[in-house]
């Protein structure tokens, strides 16, 4: 299913239509948005290098991770870094987003070169100005395509960083302009859903045609407050999660899909959702020194217990206790309960809870008016 996203981005925009736009969402409970972003970026890069994609290159707007991080990522995926300039341009909005470094370097207060700085990236020093950012992205994209007429993809990591520096309307405007640009083939961005208002997330989701959100596999059961009780769930959620994908079609129809993923050394691995996930959630009991689980026999015995309530649903006449009984009813009830007791003696396989009402001990006095003690 996740590969469908990559294929949709690979195929790009139809003539006369906006470019497909993907929102990758995650949260602190399932913080794998950056890994999903890396996966989509790597897959799209492979399509571009193999010339199987509508886009001829990618402009990567790096706000959250620096260019060195992506160089290492591409190296680990086997991409040729030496030729990467032909198909990827990194707009470095991470190293010096506000121009602090440039100010200090110009005044000679810090050294001009730092050991781990990438020389391939294009430094951008004013992330608050989204108009200039848009121009910078388009300019870099045009450098990637042949004759300045082909199409390019845009990847933004992350829009959450962008929203710290600019308003939601400016960010939405930037994304909308990119999506409707004639040379943009496709567009995808990362968003951390739990640090933004719902309306901001909704505004960005309206712009996107595909949404992929990373969710935890299991959530702690309500009432589990202690860390020791939540640990097994938290640990499982750090090993993988679920991805929920929402495709919006041109005609307005929405298609929903879900998959599971797990984190491996090589990256993310996707699998269809299994029913085991629910079983695992039920079997996650805290690791303590005493037994909290039930054996098969104990489960069977518990199932056989007859609850001491009126609504048994066991085929017998339902009798609702209204608080006052006539003597005739008492006799009938005594016969009923004695019959039941006989039954319980013979039926040794059933569990039983014997319940005595407190009010059964008190016999009502027929001469007494129960309203005598009222003082109105």
């Amino acid at each position, binding site marked *: 299913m996740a590969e469908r996203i990559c294929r949709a981005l690979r195929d790009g925009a139809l003539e006369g239509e906006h470019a497909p736009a993907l929102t990758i969402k995650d949260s602190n409970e399932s913080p794998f948005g950056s890994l999903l972003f890396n996966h989509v970026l790597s897959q799209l890069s492979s399509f571009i290098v193999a010339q199987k994609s509508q886009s001829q290159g990618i402009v990567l707007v790096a706000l959250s991770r620096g260019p060195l991080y992506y160089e290492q990522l591409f190296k680990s995926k086997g991409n040729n870094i030496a030729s990467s300039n032909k198909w990827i341009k990194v707009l470095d909005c991470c190293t010096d987003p506000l121009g602090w470094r440039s100010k200090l370097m110009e005044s000679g207060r810090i050294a001009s070169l730092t050991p*781990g700085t990438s020389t391939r990236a294009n430094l951008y020093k004013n992330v608050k100005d989204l108009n200039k950012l848009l121009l910078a992205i388009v300019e870099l994209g045009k450098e990637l395509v042949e004759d300045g007429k082909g199409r390019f993809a845009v990847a933004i990591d992350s829009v959450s960083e962008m929203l710290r520096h600019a308003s939601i309307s400016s960010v939405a405007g930037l994304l909308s302009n990119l999506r409707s640009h004639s040379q943009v083939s496709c567009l995808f961005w990362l968003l951390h859903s739990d640090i933004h208002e719902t309306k901001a997330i909704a505004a960005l989701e309206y712009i996107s045609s595909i949404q992929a959100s990373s969710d935890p596999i299991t959530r702690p059961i309500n009432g589990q407050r202690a860390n020791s009780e939540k640990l097994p769930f938290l640990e499982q959620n750090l090993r993988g999660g679920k991805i929920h994908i929402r495709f919006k079609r041109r005609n307005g129809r929405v298609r929903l899909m879900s998959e599971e993923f797990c984190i491996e050394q090589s990256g993310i691995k996707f699998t269809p959702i299994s029913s085991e996930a629910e079983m695992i959630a039920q079997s996650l009991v805290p690791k303590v020194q005493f037994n909290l689980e039930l054996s098969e026999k104990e489960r069977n015995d518990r199932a056989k217990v007859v609850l001491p309530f009126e609504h048994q649903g066991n085929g017998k006449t339902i009798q609702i206790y209204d608080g006052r009984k006539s003597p005739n009813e008492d006799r009938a009830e005594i016969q009923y309960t004695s019959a039941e007791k006989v039954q319980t003696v013979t039926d040794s396989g059933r569990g039983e809870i014997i319940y005595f009402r407190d009010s059964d001990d008190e016999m009502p006095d027929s001469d007494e008016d129960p309203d005598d003690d009222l003082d109105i």
Partner: protein
Amino acid sequence: MDVQVPNLLDDALGGGGRVVLIEDCVETSGAFVLHHFLKRSLSPNSSDAVIFLSFSQPFSHYDRILRKMGCNLVVRRDNKRLLFFDLLMLNSLGREEEKTSEDLLLSLYEKVHKAVEICSSPARNITIIIDDVSLLEVAVNCLSNMVLDFLHYCYSLTAEFGCSLITLNHEDIYSSLDKSSLILQMEYHADVVIKAEPLSTGLATDVHGQLTVIDKGLGGGVCNSGKICNFQFRIKDNQIEYFYPGSRT
């Protein structure tokens, strides 16, 4: 000779070069974790350096505590293994010099950058420690977005110079309803989150609280399964004892 005894906290943390966030609360202070990191980084068995930005306590406070733990901060400071910045009066200094909050943070970043340049020659592991971020926020008149900008620049330094960044912040001073709270954003950037919390049963004589170490396994461009460790601790005069629940006799 000071021999570093491996303990549960070190086992849970693994290697260096990462962004670590320590979260504590009123009931359980996480300052002892900072002291642990300080001692670990300034071990006589290594040549690692520490850049300490203190908004909370003066140098003498840390010196007193670390001496009892067998680490002489004065000697480390003289050897340039420890660069200590006393920033308790940052706010009033800024007002005197009529600097804006952005100027204050810019000059603070300049100090950190220069310190990293000094410590990186000869090449060695560098740890930047900030105690604590909530007081940095106060120093810049609670402009949390600017604090995040400053921290972003520190994260860039860790990526470029391969140093570690350890910050302490208080989890209970931020509203859970405030979605853009500073601490939530810091959790996103952290590779490891260490939470110091009280026991669910309250304060005890022999057990002073519990630590939960959440290693997301996503740091340094390497993909690993995350792991979580939970253990209890007892603070003594000259050391901290870490142990699993129920394992103390």
